[in-house]
């Protein structure tokens, strides 16, 4: 056990104050200028911002693909886009939205916000965080470069075998998809470990478990779901690559394998995946509802327990994606029950939020508008979810546009609308400027109307026999008019995103200055400057309530004794957050970037030859040794 004696030369934050304290800490924790410095940064805010921007780029790319699909489907037997390109487009749309936008954007928001909200100076394992971002960026780029080179996957975002297998999926398209999965899942798993460790061990002194903000609880639960669900898709995608590359027979019925094994493995991941996307949205809703009702959220314990319940239950639903695949009926009915059961904790959350609004003073600003949109859209999606949970109903609507409508209602309603609200809410903290409220309202109404115009008619199209993933349809089927309406709606929705981008760009340059707490909110991220200092807090706060900034006091209690020359943060106990260590936080390093490049080379080469896994691993090992080899600095050694 090291002694905690201060060396004579070491400066602590008890020795300094005010602007000088801030300046010294900023120097210790800052990211330098220049390319190498920027590639080496381990500041969670810098990485978080990069991550958020990158995921939104993927959102826009995925959205353009959607517009392309809707232009093709606007008329029957259209020859705008042929079947091969269309199949790549819908696969890229789903894969981009699910793997490169929806999950990563929630991780990205967490990377930025969670350390601030729990009152620490950096995320746990900061270099790993940098590595996670690079791996995500390289994996997403790999997929899109392949697409541009006409080797984009064309088997749907869930790549069912045997269509994606060696016999019916020639070339490298399905391998590109499977390896993209490896990139993104490694990234997500590492971020999950960072978040769990940050929330468990780096909370501000006094932030006991029942004082953790709901958004942080949501990200904690989500991180656990990630840990236990993502291995399933990695096992699946690895098995697929093995079948395609080296002749294994996991999914080959002729040699003892099974086509449905793929579906079980994929959906065991796939169902929790949608809760990985949705639960952070609920955390954002909770924070926004709290702030704009001007009262602590109603039912804190119920909300936390609901989050945990949903996290658990999400693992028991996956067979509902396979109701018509020929699974035994008794087993299937169990999954109907569990799929309907999950509506109960979701309902608890909705009731708590409405009660918060009903017993508070409701201030309607753009973030809250998007939350109200969430209520309307997500709940409708939840209702159709109960319908598709029923085996008999699902035999009619499975794999039709009804399901497409359902999941867009729950994903866009349940995750994207809260995310947009969260952007309006936290933009001032991240950039120091307010977004335009007027543009925000236009954005909201365009998005709300465009979304419903685009997706509501799909329920009817599904009931009228239109299956998913068709590049065209005959005029005699009676789907023409509704498809035209859907396509028109999609253009309105696309326009709303354009307006949003405009609002973001304009506000970053000339939005009103925000100040530390423009919304008068209660959580710790609002206790520091906007944008925050590199070290987040000049002194780590001590927490005595759930909404630290709403507890009436003249000033915020803080703890002292941390070094200003070396990167130090507080490690505290799991339940009560009693401080136990002054842990050093790693300095900037170029090794995460280099290791990510080595990993990318390994992963990409492995789809061409299995030997790449061998020499690639050696390459990665060298980089990892470089990464972890101590540099002799105080942070490293002591």
């Amino acid at each position: 056990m090291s002694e905690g004696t201060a060396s004579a030369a070491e400066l602590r934050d008890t020795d300094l104050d005010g602007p000088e304290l801030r300046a010294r800490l900023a120097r210790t924790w800052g990211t330098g200028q220049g390319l190498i410095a920027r590639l080496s940064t381990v500041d969670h805010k810098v990485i978080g911002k990069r991550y958020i921007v990158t995921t939104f780029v993927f959102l826009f790319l995925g959205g353009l693909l959607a517009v392309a699909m809707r232009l093709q489907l606007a008329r029957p037997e259209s020859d705008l886009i042929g079947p091969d390109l269309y199949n790549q487009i819908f696969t890229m749309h789903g894969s981009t939205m699910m793997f490169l936008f929806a999950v990563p954007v929630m991780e990205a928001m967490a990377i930025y916000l969670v350390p601030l909200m729990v009152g620490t100076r950096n995320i746990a394992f900061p270099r790993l965080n940098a590595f996670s971002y690079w791996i995500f960026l390289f994996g997403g780029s790999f997929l899109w470069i392949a697409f541009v080179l006409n080797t984009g996957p064309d088997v749907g975002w869930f790549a069912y075998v045997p269509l994606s297998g060696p016999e019916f999926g020639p070339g490298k398209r399905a391998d590109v998809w499977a390896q993209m999965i490896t990139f993104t899942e490694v990234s997500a798993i590492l971020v999950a470990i960072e978040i769990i460790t940050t929330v468990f061990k780096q909370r501000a002194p006094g932030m006991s478990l029942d004082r953790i903000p709901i958004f942080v609880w949501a990200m904690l639960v989500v991180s656990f779901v990630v840990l236990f669900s993502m291995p399933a898709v990695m096992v699946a995608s690895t098995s697929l690559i093995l079948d395609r590359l080296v002749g294994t027979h996991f999914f080959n019925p002729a040699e003892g394998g099974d086509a449905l094994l793929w579906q079980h493995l994929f959906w065991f991941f796939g169902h929790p995946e949608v809760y990985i996307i949705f639960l952070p949205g609920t955390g954002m809703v909770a924070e926004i509802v709290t702030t704009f009702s001007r009262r602590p959220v109603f039912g804190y314990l119920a909300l936390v327990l609901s989050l945990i319940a949903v996290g658990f239950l999400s693992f028991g639903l996956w067979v509902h994606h396979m109701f018509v695949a020929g699974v035994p009926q008794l087993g299937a009915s169990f999954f109907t029950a569990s799929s309907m059961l999950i509506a109960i904790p979701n309902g608890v959350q909705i009731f708590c939020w409405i009660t918060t609004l009903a017993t508070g003073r409701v201030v309607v600003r753009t973030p809250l508008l998007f939350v109200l949109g969430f209520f309307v859209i997500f709940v409708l999606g939840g209702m159709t979810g109960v319908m598709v949970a029923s085996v008999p109903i699902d035999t009619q609507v499975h794999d039709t546009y009804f399901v497409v409508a359902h999941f867009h209602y729950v994903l866009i309603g349940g995750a994207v609308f809260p995310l947009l609200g969260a952007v309006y809410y936290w933009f001032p903290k991240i950039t120091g400027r307010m977004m335009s409220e007027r543009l925000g309202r236009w954005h909201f109404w365009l998005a709300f109307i465009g979304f419903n115009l685009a997706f509501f008619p799909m329920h009817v199209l599904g009931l009228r026999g239109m299956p998913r993933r068709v590049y065209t349809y005959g005029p005699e089927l009676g789907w023409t008019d509704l498809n035209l309406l859907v396509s028109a709606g999609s253009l309105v929705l696309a326009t709303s995103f354009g307006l949003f981008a405009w609002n973001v760009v304009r506000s970053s340059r000339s939005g009103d200055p925000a100040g530390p707490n423009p919304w008068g909110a209660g959580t710790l991220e609002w206790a520091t400057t906007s944008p925050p200092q590199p070290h987040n807090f000049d002194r780590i706060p001590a927490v005595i309530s759930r909404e630290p900034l709403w507890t009436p006091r003249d000033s915020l209690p803080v703890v002292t004794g941390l070094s200003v020359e070396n990167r130090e943060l507080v490690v505290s106990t799991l339940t009560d957050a009693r401080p136990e260590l002054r842990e050093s936080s790693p300095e900037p390093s170029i090794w995460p970037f280099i290791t990510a490049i080595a990993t990318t080379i390994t992963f990409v080469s492995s789809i061409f030859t299995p030997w790449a896994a061998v020499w690639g691993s050696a390459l990665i090992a060298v980089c990892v040794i470089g990464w972890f080899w101590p540099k002799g600095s105080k942070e490293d050694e002591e």
Partner: protein
Amino acid sequence: MKTHPVEDLSHLPTYGFGAQSPMWWGTLGLFAVEGMGFVLVIGMYLYLWFINPAWPLGVTPPNHWPGMLILLILLASLWPNAATERAGREEDLPNCRLLLIVMSLVAVLVVGIRFYEFTTLHVLWDTNAYGSVVWFLLGLHALHVITDAGDTIVLTVLMFTRHGHGKRFSDVSDNAFYWYFVVLTWIPLYLLIYWFPRM
């Protein structure tokens, strides 16, 4: 925002062991992920067994002696491993160095036997689904042993350099922690690969 100090943390140490150490939690996270991976591939094995009329498919069960040998070596290694963890906690540099050399040798030995073990399975990965899943299971565990061998060797070297102090003792302790996972996961895998098909 105005602030006022309520507690001085200068006296706190700068690194800890076990649940005090964030790295320990990170390792626990890896246990969860990799453990889940094993659970899933075991699930694949049992699923394929369930849907096939005969098992193993068209071959004799694998020769269990190499696997048994590895099991015995791993179980025996628990004692020096526990000693390594204790030496790390007590910051006992000479013992750390000695025990890390021992653990490195154990890991390398296991890797060697493991390579041989693949040749005694009586089936190849591309023979049929049974072969594929057995190679997958064994390969996954092999991957863990190889990476842990690498970790241990690098840490051993590190403890002989000028860096062998302070936080490195926490790393020694965490590395030993990870070896428990490698040993523990072999037990169900050994039973599944070698004894389940004989039942």
